């Protein structure tokens, strides 16, 4: 007697139908775009590694890394101030976050690049009393496109990072602070050695998102003539009119940058997820 019974898995007909529809739609988009003659693959290949584009790529990476790094430092400082018992510090940090989160980055960039040099004509760093000038320049010379883009992006990022770091600090068990205090550790030492290392688990994932976002936000600096990736691309297509191939080139490079950054984020999360294993256990309770 044959006792074998054939088990028939559930057939997901809906998935096959919808999947097919998506494939057809994408195929049609590619085909119609190719037929239009505006997406020239040869042009894309030609410009992908052209010196101007690579210069722009380097400028994008430099601006993003510097702005993000400065944003993280500002974020930690303002988060600690925001949570401080010192009312002045807390209020200043609150006002900073309110202002920079509350206005568009593009407006901030225009403000740094166009607004500041027309309001303040020069910048002087002078030691008081002994009248030694360390640095002096006309504001228009100081506020280069790079400087304006860096200041705008870093200060804006600092406000977002401050909220991320604050959430991280608040996620640490108050018993940790008490234990550190009971051992005679000062508030600063407690923050540096006990609280921040444990807050990293909560801070790192959204910071990775912030950096990925920053890589793309740098494209706004093209509006104030900073020669990053998008600006270089548009410089080229404004002379040869190969608009779509150059936008494809820029997009491909942005995808490369964000993909690499995502990989880095994954490694960082694995590194910092380990430390707080007992924190993880406490959460379940």
């Amino acid at each position, binding site marked *: 007697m044959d006792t074998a019974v054939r088990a028939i898995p559930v057939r997901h007909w809906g998935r096959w139908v919808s999947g097919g529809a998506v494939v057809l739609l994408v195929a049609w988009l590619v085909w119609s775009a190719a037929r239009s003659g505006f997406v020239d693959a040869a042009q894309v290949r030609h410009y992908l590694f052209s010196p101007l584009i690579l210069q722009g790529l380097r400028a994008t990476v430099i601006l993003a890394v510097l702005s993000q790094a400065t944003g993280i430092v500002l974020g930690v400082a303002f988060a600690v101030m925001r949570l401080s018992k010192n009312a002045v510090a807390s209020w200043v940090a609150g006002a900073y976050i309110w202002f920079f989160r509350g206005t568009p980055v593009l407006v901030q960039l225009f403000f740094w690049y166009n607004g500041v040099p027309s309001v303040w004509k020069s910048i002087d760093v002078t030691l008081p009393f002994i009248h030694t000038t360390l640095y002096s320049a006309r504001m228009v010379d100081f506020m280069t496109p790079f400087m304006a883009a860096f200041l705008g992006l870093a200060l804006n990022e600092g406000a977002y990072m401050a909220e991320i770091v604050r959430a991280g600090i608040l996620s640490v*068990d108050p*018993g*940790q602070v*008490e*234990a*550190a*205090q*009971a*051992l*005679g*550790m*000062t*508030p600063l*030492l407690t923050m540096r*050695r*006990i609280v921040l*290392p*444990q807050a990293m688990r909560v801070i790192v994932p959204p910071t990775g998102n912030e950096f990925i976002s920053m890589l793309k936000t740098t494209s706004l600096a093209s509006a104030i003539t900073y020669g990053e990736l998008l600006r270089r691309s548009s410089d080229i297509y404004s002379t040869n009119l190969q608009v779509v191939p150059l936008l494809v080139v820029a997009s491909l490079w942005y995808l490369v940058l964000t993909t690499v950054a995502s990989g880095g984020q994954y490694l960082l999360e694995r590194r910092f997820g380990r*430390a*707080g*294993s*007992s*924190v993880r*256990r406490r959460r379940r309770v």
Partner: protein
Amino acid sequence: MTAPMVQAERVRKSFGRVEALRGVDLTVQPGEVTVIIGPSGSGKSTFLRCINHLEQISSGRLWVDGELVGYRQEGDRLHELREREVAGRRAAIGMVFQRFNLFPHMTVLQNVTEAPVRVKRIPAGRARATASALLERVGLAGKVDSYPAELSGGQQQRVAIARALAMEPKLMLFDEPTSALDPELVGEVLAVMRDLAADGMTMIVVTHEMGFAREVGHHLVFMDEGAVVEEGPPRQVFAEPHEPRTRAFLSKVL
């Protein structure tokens, strides 16, 4: 007679409108083990936390080793201490918490050496040697490189005791050190505390372990509703409590 290690005079503490301490008077002599018992919400833990200034008292006076907690006296003036000075005073008082509060991102050894190295600026090598000796004393010589999450509750609490001892405190505060432990792990922590008491450490222990109170305590304090109701030698208080509230409490826990 020697100067008391801790002296409290009409110590009060309010949290908003709730009065946690309503005038606590208490004296702890050096080398003495004082055990504080009482129902939950009686203010035992709050009083303990006032001693190392984790809570600031609302009124009354509290001395530790002859110095007013939270203040520095110059002539007839009292100056409130800055955070840094408060930290300096706390460094001389060890505290063990109900929930251990070990630093989860550090190994057992790092937990014990962190404060001596960072606060007392003891050279790392010497701090490690001291820490190893202390960990051996609490029976955890083999666990120096483990992380707290890899240890049982009893082991974690013994590390916490070693961590406090590494600062060479003149006074040790225990805030319900065995309340978060599985019953079979309570004994190993009490054994370490017993050993410490035999060594002459001044200890204030808030606990529900009546056996420990009776055998190790020199002085038993019963607190209820934010005040000391009755105190005396443990055997005497356990055998013939004078106050009805003490009798009622003891009849429930013994």
